[in-house]
């Protein structure tokens, strides 16, 4: 009994420690975004007090009319890429697991390579291609790249889940006279919803946080994303920390909202198949 309590205590201590490590920096950013510049540097670890509280960072961020645009750009890119990754990824996973055709295994392997090789290695070729397609400085360029970036892992995970959908269900639907498309949309997709949520979270965070591709593919005024927009507050000699921290705090909100939306299904997704 005592031993059990001790081990539970150790587990909880480890979890609390990890939570502090994970949440700490975020808390630090949030706290300091409400503090005056002097207080940020003077006592970075203390919460805002009456004397140090200021909204100057948020003022300067919101005063820039462009910032709304950056948010819209980031959201557009993330949501459209996410939708494309989930839809085409699920379709591809369904095709690869359900149908036997030539090159089935080869295509599966090709997709798996995409998991192993980082897409940034191809930045030069991607840039050349986008120039050739006249897509530089468009959100389309980002969406295409992010879709390609998210697909391999999405297909890999979704294929695993689709395989777990009992064969009899698909056969029953076929006997019911349901078309292959309908089977996919009305039977398979609802049943792999937890997996879709898992993939959605894995996919959306890197897209939202990415600085690299916006920087090289869409650095123009109208197409900047939040991560790129924040950069204008970071100068070579002077950095407007109030504005940077305020912008980053604001940037957490939408992704947090999306995460909460997916998370209920996510927990089921991560543990599904663990117990059998």
């Amino acid at each position, binding site marked *: 009994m005592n031993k059990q309590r001790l081990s539970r205590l150790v587990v909880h201590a480890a979890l609390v420690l990890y939570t502090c490590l994970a949440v700490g920096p975020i808390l630090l950013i949030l706290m300091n975004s409400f503090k005056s510049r002097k207080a940020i540097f003077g006592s970075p670890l203390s919460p805002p007090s009456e004397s140090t509280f200021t909204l100057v960072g948020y003022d300067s961020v919101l005063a820039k009319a462009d910032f709304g645009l950056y948010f819209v750009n980031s959201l557009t890119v993330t949501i459209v890429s996410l939708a494309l990754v989930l839809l085409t990824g699920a379709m591809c996973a369904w095709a690869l697991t359900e149908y036997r055709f030539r090159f089935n295994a080869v295509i599966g392997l090709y997709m798996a390579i995409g998991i192993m090789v980082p897409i940034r290695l191809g930045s030069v070729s991607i840039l050349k291609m986008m120039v050739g397609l006249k897509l530089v400085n468009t959100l389309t360029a980002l969406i295409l790249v992010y879709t390609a970036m998210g697909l391999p892992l999405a297909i890999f995970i979704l294929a695993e889940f689709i395989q777990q959908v009992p064969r*009899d269900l698909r*056969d029953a639907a*076929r006997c019911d006279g*349901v078309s292959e498309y309908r089977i996919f949309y009305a039977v398979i997709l609802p049943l792999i919803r937890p997996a879709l949520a898992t993939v959605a979270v894995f996919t959306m965070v890197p897209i939202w946080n990415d600085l690299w591709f916006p920087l090289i593919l869409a650095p123009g005024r109208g197409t900047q994303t939040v991560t790129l927009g924040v950069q204008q507050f970071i100068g070579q000699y002077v950095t407007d920390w109030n504005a940077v921290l305020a912008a980053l705090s604001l940037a957490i909100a939408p992704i947090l909202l999306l995460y909460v939306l997916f998370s209920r299904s996510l927990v089921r997704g991560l543990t599904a198949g663990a117990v059998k």
Partner: protein
Amino acid sequence: MAEVSLKGVSKSFGTVEVLKDINLDVEDGAFVVFVGPSGCGKSTLLRLIAGLEKTTTGDIFIGGRRVNDVPPAERKIAMVFQSYALYPHMSVYKNMAFGLKYAKAGREEIDQRVRQAAETLQLTPYLRRYPRDLSGGQRQRVAIGRAIVREPAVFLFDEPLSNLDAALRINTRIEIAKLHRALGATTIYVTHDQVEAMTLASKIVVINKGQIEQIGTPLDLYHRPAKLFVAGFIGSPQMNFVKAKIVGADGGLTAKLDVGGEVRLPPAPAKAGDVVTLGVRPENLSDQPGGDFRVAGAVDAVEHLGESSLVHMHLDDGTVVVVRTPGDSAVVPGSRLTASAPLSAVHAFAQSGAAFISGGVASTNTSDPA
């Protein structure tokens, strides 16, 4: 309403041939049961008829139409799966309506058909529930309901009762029999349970190792099994087999049992020197020594079932023989017993497995003219 016929159907998965040259006619309105041990190919045969697998060679006809290249939905069949295969994210009502919705049936017609099927299967109180909230028997009824609403010409059942407990299995078995009588549709039913086969079928198809062993009515198979395999498979407890050798063929046959003793058999296509297997069902053996076929051995165990008792004994060469005696039998384990049966209960099988004597008379349906 439709008849189903298979002509020279075979099926291979890669290099493994799971079905060999299957020829079969199922009349309109018949209740045909495919029975055989697991892995014999009976489920594959059902999936071929459903259109879920393609034949390697041969043709399948449903209602006179060749359906080799017709998708399952257009074959006018409905299938009930062993695992029920209910859509877990749909209510009972939607499960049953799902197929109809895409068959472009009107909303009212769907509603009427679903409610009627639910009424028949006593599912009306459960229409709004989800499969996870139902018991095994209820799920099974929903699966059957989903098949009924499609008003198919042919019902296909793939071991529908094997996930139910014993009591429910008997109930559902009777329900299925009633349903077949009410709907009158051609039904093909797959099971490995010979009791289900015997009780439900108007015709049984015994399948073993990808081939049809025998086709016949339940009593046909019981009284006149054409093959050793069928004799052993149909009937419970299974038929007793003893090895013997034909020692005389003058007018009638004389068989000498390996364990000792002789049996006079009627004239039949066999000759002196043939090694044969004699079979007698436990219920035809008695603990009185008066019959034409006699074996003696030591009693190992007596199972009292109430209305009868099963006496398990082993002969001197180790062959196990089961005798069904009256319930108040006084036989005790450890004693010696001579069991006997009249000639009319004796079956004889050639080494090929083909029967040449069934129920004490020379077989007419032997497929192996020895």
